[in-house]
């Protein structure tokens, strides 16, 4: 078995005070080192660890699960055909869809597609359930509003052109082959 049980090492009990003094000096050396690195590190191009939001933004990985949005095709229509799978998969029931008929070749479209963002927990199950690549988790994570009603997003608010969702769609497509 490659699993060993190991006793943790405790530093020796401090009989003399010079040991504790040494430990304090060692600690001060650590903080001084950090201080110098932070103060003068900019000379060698070191970046602050802190991201100065909102002037700077953190660059998230492509896997980021932001707000769910509807993909808008080139002709301006949504790709969604109101199949209702995202509505059913959502654990918090934040999606409300009422389908309706169209005259075009794509017979079905969502007349009403509402997402209550106060209930949405950005879990991404709607995106996983969708059989049309019509709802994806965008990279939008700043969604605060001044009124409670502002958190109820309607279809018009949720439509995002496909070109602006390239990062996420590419990430999803890299996973399609499983």
């Amino acid at each position, binding site marked *: 078995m490659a699993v060993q049980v190991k006793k943790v090492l405790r530093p020796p009990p401090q009989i003399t005070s010079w040991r504790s003094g040494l430990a304090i000096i060692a600690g001060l050396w650590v903080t001084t080192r950090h201080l110098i690195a932070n103060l003068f590190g900019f000379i060698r191009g070191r970046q602050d660890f802190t991201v100065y939001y909102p002037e700077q933004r953190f660059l998230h990985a492509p896997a980021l699960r932001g707000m769910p949005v509807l993909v808008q095709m080139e002709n301006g229509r949504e790709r969604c*055909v109101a199949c*209702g799978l995202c509505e*059913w998969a959502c654990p918090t029931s934040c999606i409300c869809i009422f*389908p309706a*008929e169209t005259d075009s070749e794509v*017979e*079905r479209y969502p007349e009403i597609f509402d997402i209550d963002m106060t209930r949405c927990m950005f879990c991404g199950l709607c995106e996983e359930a969708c059989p049309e690549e019509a709802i994806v988790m965008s990279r939008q994570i700043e969604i605060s509003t001044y009124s409670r009603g502002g958190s109820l997003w309607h279809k018009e608010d949720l439509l995002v052109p496909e070109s602006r969702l390239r990062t996420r769609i590419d990430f999803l497509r890299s996973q399609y082959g499983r």
Partner: protein
Amino acid sequence: MENIVQIVVDGRTIAAPEGVPLLQAMLDAGIDVPHYCYHPKLSIDGSCRLCAVKIEGMPKLQIACNTQVRAGMLVHTDDEEAAQTRRGVLELLLLNHPLDCPICDKAGECWLQNYSVRFGSRRGRSVMPRRKLGKRLDIGERMLLDQERCILCRRCVRFCREITKTGELLIFNRGHRSVLDIGDSRLDNPYSMCTADICPVGALETRDFHHRLRVWFFTQTASVCPGCSNGCNIMVDECYGQIWRLFPRRNDAVNDTWMCDSGRLGYRFVNRPRLRHPLINESGAPSAATWSEALERAAGGLIRVRDTWGGSAIGALISPHLTTEENFRFGELLRALGAEKLAMAVPRGAADNFLIKAEKAANARGVRELGLVSGEDDGLNSLLQSVRAGRIKALYVCGEDLLRVIGAEQTAALLQPLEFVAVQTLRQIPEYARAAVAFPATSFAEKNGVFVNHAGRAQRIAVAVDPPPGWMSDGEIFTQLLNRIESRAERFSPEAVWSQIAAGNPRFAGLSLDRLGTLGAPLVDPENIGPQTVHTAPS
């Protein structure tokens, strides 16, 4: 006479009548053998081959639908060869099936989805493009056809040929070119929407339900269609407080598995603008009122007329749409007032020799069985004469059938000279504006009760949609009025009233609600529609 024999299916012994299709025997015993083309009410086709089972003693697999039960059969449904056949059939059916699940209304109740998951191969192998046929074809006033989704089970063809005897739908061409289409006539028979029920996939869809809502949201309730006195057994689909769809359920004694299109579409009135609160008319125009105000006014008005001119000056129009229990309570109320002139206006329309009946109300016979009305026209002419002669001073009108039977002008003229009019309707009717009190009624989908159909079969209806909070059902309104008139303090309970009816009226003897169940039961001696036994109320 049926000869019941024993057969063994998957090690289980079941008893079945000799000669019935083996598939039916297995389905009746609760063994879910997959099948498409077989339908208990249609002729046997044997085209889908999905119900293949292994019967010992027969060399090849047999289709259970076209094999008759014989004593001592040993059947295996889980045989490896049968399972492989099923997988093969399903794979071939799915080969050309369009990828329409997201837009197909049948998703959630689709036999292809259900069987594919349980018996299919679960892995698609085909890379060839699928055949292209007509989609969303307009084949009838109420029906749409998608030829690509059709799995050629021919149930609809047999339905049109054998049940409606109109033969609109046909399969054209042969082999892999087979395609379902209408021939010379469009699919417009009065039962056309039944084809959407029997179609296992989403090939035949009703326009009424096209792209409305996903079926997995529905709460389903067993009830009875209120359209005519046939009383077809239905299921009511409800969601978000509205009714979205009705479809038939099987009752071999009433409607087999069918219902007519007008009954099927007759749910919209439940959702449409309804009278939502009682109205009082004191100043010439109806205005909203609270329940207690309206009840006081109604009770006061009726008592005043009774005290001034006697009970015989009060007349009533009983609704054939209310349940038996509610009308029983209405009868008690009218008896307490001393009213004698009771009538019922039953709207009549076209009938056929299948399911559609002339009386377009579900409970006309129920009212007659309670002994509340008599005569060929249910006492209507006599009541109208009395009103016009001025012998009736007050009228309690339930429902808007009066308008449909004698017309709007006549109705307005009828009500004009009356001292006191109380009405109870689903909607606000302009011709009833003169009424001193207007109560909102509940529809068939909002209450529990019993309807008696034309053949004397008592069937239960159940609450599918909750009425708004604080609402009173029709029976509760009658009870409240009765309480005020006779100083009682009763509540309306359909179950209690039904027990009362079953105990007091020999026609209803022995018919407890449990006995009625979901399929109903006939009254005692239903054929005899002779002189009614007048119900004697317990004192």
